[in-house]
């Protein structure tokens, strides 16, 4: 008997093989005419969930399975999951004008493959998620490390500042104020002495203010400074400086000259406390670091700018220390001298706060010249109530508000109406998408935490359809991640609740002026 000659196998073996085949493969044969009418059904129909007595639905499923495929050609569709959950290999076998559909069990093989595939896919998905998480963790870690270093530096600086200020300012000031009280009780009514005493008290008080401002510097949270511009009497300011420093200069045998030029009839407007701090620090340094020669102070008010120049014939600053002189606690070229090394860093900070510029020339042994130029301060920005008042510039601007909290929506509507917007309110994200696409408002203000479709999803949908209008999202989550997610979805601005009205007004002004940044292109519907 050859290897492939099954004709001669014993009947007993053939019978065994047939039994094995039926047991494992559960063949089911359905015979159809050319119109998919079932003519005969043979085999284990129940195994495939087919009701042999009423096979209508199953026949329909089989028809669906062979949609688009000719019944005149053999067809083989492996691993089909049937309605009862079993998997089968399906074969369509043409037989003249009719055909047969043969189902063979594939459940065991399907389960084996599924177990392998499930494992592989889960591993792949986990691996992708792991890679992503590791990337995020690395990013977070490096960011945290950066923040930690910055915080440590800031903390060290702050501690050093506070410690320094305690000793260098508060301790002597306490002593000064104590003695002032003592002298005040004994000085009597002598007018000249009284005047002198007042001058001392005034300057001591100013010094105390300066100390307090420096403490604020030490807090160093990077917050934008609140300037307080007021009209400044430059002549009086210069007189005060002279009164403060001329005695010190004369004690050291130095010349001390001041000059004032007023070439602009308009009133100088500056934060006077800061302007004084700048000048006091510069003149104080000049007097302190000059052993012989003179110190001159010149103020020029010209074309809306104040130019102040403080020149000395002091020890000078080495070229190598030029960049370091504005660093706190760095006395650089003035090494060995007294003082906290804070003066110039404070000057630099104040000048920047006042949108001015600072420059200096210096030569070792010949002296230094510091020049500060400060533009006239802007009038104080109006409080938010005032900011809301001018409706005119936002008139004819349209805004669509999407918030499902009726109270919040009402509040937003009222605020925006005050700003001059024409407001339309919807309560869900889906409506927001439809309305925004249809009406193209200048601004869409949408809550992130909407029920159903989220605000972020709505923004994403709009942007992915080419929507170019300005979008502001509003969220109760004030985290950097939430903000980043909203901006990534396509928002232009991210506001958090509770509303900061000033910030809200500012953002709305920006949003209204941005409007349709893509021009007049209509979004794709």
């Amino acid at each position, binding site marked *: 008997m050859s290897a492939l000659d099954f004709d001669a196998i014993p009947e007993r073996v053939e019978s065994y093989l047939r039994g094995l085949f039926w047991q494992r493969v559960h063949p089911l044969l359905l015979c159809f005419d050319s119109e998919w009418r079932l003519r005969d059904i043979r085999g284990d129909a129940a195994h495939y969930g087919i009701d042999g007595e009423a096979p209508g639905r199953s026949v329909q*499923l089989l028809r*669906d*399975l*062979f*949609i*688009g*495929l000719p019944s005149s050609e053999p067809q*083989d*569709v*492996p*691993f*089909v*999951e049937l309605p009862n959950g079993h*998997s089968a290999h399906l074969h369509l076998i043409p037989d003249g004008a009719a055909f047969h559909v043969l189902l063979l069990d*594939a459940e065991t093989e*399907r389960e084996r*493959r*599924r177990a392998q*595939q*499930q494992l592989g*896919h*889960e591993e*792949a*998905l986990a691996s*992708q998620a792991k890679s992503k998480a590791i990337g995020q963790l690395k990013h977070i870690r490096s960011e945290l490390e950066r923040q930690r270093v910055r915080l440590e530096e800031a903390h060290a600086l702050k501690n050093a500042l506070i410690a320094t200020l305690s000793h260098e300012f508060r301790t002597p000031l306490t002593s000064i104020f104590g003695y002032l009280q003592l002298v005040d009780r004994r000085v009597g009514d002598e007018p000249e002495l009284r005047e002198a005493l007042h001058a001392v008290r005034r300057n001591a008080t100013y010094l105390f203010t300066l100390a307090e401002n420096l403490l604020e510097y030490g807090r160093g949270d990077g917050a934008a400074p609140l300037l307080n511009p007021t009209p400044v009497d430059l002549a009086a300011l210069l007189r005060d400086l002279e009164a403060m420093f001329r005695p010190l200069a004369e004690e050291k045998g130095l010349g001390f000259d001041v000059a004032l030029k007023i070439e602009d009839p308009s009133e100088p407007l500056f934060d006077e406390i800061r302007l004084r701090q700048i000048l006091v620090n510069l003149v104080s340094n000049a007097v302190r670091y000059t052993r012989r020669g003179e110190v001159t102070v010149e103020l020029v008010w010209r074309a809306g700018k104040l130019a102040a120049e403080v020149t000395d014939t002091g020890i000078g600053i080495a070229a190598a220390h030029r960049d370091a002189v504005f660093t706190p606690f760095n006395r650089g070229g003035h090494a060995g001298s007294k003082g906290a090394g804070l003066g110039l860093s404070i000057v630099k900070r104040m000048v920047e706060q006042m949108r001015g510029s600072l420059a200096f020339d210096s030569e070792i042994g010949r002296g230094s010249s510091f020049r500060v130029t400060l533009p006239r301060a802007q009038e104080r920005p109006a409080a938010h109530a005032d900011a809301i008042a001018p409706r005119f510039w936002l008139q004819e601007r349209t805004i669509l508000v999407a918030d499902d909290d009726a109270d919040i929506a009402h509040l937003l509507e009222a605020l925006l109406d005050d700003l001059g917007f024409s407001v339309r309110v919807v309560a869900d994200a889906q409506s927001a998408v439809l309305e925004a696409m249809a009406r193209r408002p200048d601004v869409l203000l949408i809550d992130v935490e909407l029920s*159903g*479709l*989220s605000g*972020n*999803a709505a923004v*994403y*949908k*709009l*942007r*992915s*359809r*080419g929507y170019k209008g300005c979008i502001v999202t509003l969220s109760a989550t004030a985290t950097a991640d*939430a903000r980043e*997610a909203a901006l*990534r*979805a*396509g928002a232009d601005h991210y506001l958090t609740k509770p509303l900061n009205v000033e910030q809200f007004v500012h953002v709305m002004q920006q949003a209204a002026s941005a409007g349709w940044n893509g021009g007049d292109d209509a979004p*794709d519907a």
Partner: protein
Amino acid sequence: MTAIAHKLCMLGDFGVGKTSLVSRFVHSTFSEKYLTTVGVKVDSREIALPGRAACKLVLWDIAGRSHLDALNMTYLRGASALLLVADGTRERSLNTALELLMQSRSLLPAAEVVLAVNKLDLVEQWEIAPAVLAELRRTLPVHETSARSGEGVEAAFADIAGRLAA
């Protein structure tokens, strides 16, 4: 009026939510558990189309693959529409969906095609930028979907049905 049946194949990488989309569309259900598909599962649902005969979509939920092998090609035969599925949280799955489309074109040059970018409920974790979909829309109908919430699912299948009936 008898519904006209059309074979629609779901194509996309594994784990993008093909089975979940079918389950949401046909049975209005969703399972959080990921169960890989082996071979194919066939389901169907009729969609009423205004002013036209109803359309019966016979949905072939094919096992997810990053490329079309001989077995997948077997399943695609006779299909008149493809629903490409990508997972918004995995940018690579969008590339896979587009590659699968290109591979299937040799067999199904005239099939209607719609792209579903799934998992809209996780939009905060999406890697696919809105500008990418805005660009794709120039050549392909695109729907953002969430099998979990049901968002966009009806619209995606209705879009296909409408195109098949046109």
